[in-house]
């Protein structure tokens, strides 16, 4: 075998390629997932609830904010009652 033949055989060997059968399907699934995610609105009621329940600190923050708002409201009512 001449060196040129070796070189050509190597080139041919390097050009052979086997791609897994589901290559295109996997990719298309990834693209469809991406499109679904892109089309999903950033903020809707369900997503806000999902977001709140997913993080402990967000949950605590929302409860605290609710408690503060309730307390302020009670204070306003008491103040209005005493002012009468």
């Amino acid at each position, binding site marked *: *075998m001449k*060196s040129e033949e*070796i*070189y050509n*055989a*190597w*080139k041919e*060997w*390097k*050009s052979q*390629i086997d*791609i*897994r059968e589901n*290559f*295109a399907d*996997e*990719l*298309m699934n*990834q*693209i*469809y997932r*991406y*499109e679904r995610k892109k089309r999903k609105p950033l903020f809707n009621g369900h997503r806000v609830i999902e977001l709140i329940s997913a993080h402990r600190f967000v949950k605590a923050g929302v409860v605290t904010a609710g408690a503060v708002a309730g307390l302020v409201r009670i204070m306003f009512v008491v103040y209005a009652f005493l002012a009468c």
Partner: protein
Amino acid sequence: MTQETKVIRQVLQGDIESFRFVVAKYERPIVRMIRNITNNRESCEDIAQDVFFTAYRKLASFDAARSNFSTWLFIIARNKSINALRKKRPLSMSELPQNSDAHNPSDELAEREFFDELDVRLEALPSAQKRAFVLAEFENLSYAEIAQIEGVRIGTIKSRINRAKKELAKTLKEIWCEK
């Protein structure tokens, strides 16, 4: 309007499934190019999927007046391959396999040894030389296309390919002399 341009337009108008045509047409050259540049048979298909996914996301930025679609796709593949190589630990000279002293070219095993030897030399080439060589020899791209992919002048590409060929010819000669 070429069929490819038509398909790209369809994809941009929301017909996602048409992108399958692009994948079917280019999956082999893209996977082969990445495999030959990164020399990684395990992850080359994953990198290729990333190339196609990036191409899909950036399809709107493709400008047919500036380049062919295939050139644009090869540019993405080139950049992803470079990133993959950066993450990979470089091969030190001490790790390169030593020459066997029992070469018999008629033997299939010896032929495989030659291939391995050439692979090692290809891997040891400077990155830019290797990329130019792979695109020219395995993908049969023109110098002009390679220059566009690499973002350099045609003369630079010619010189990179010549140097790579000389280096590999030297290796072939060494193998042949050892016979």
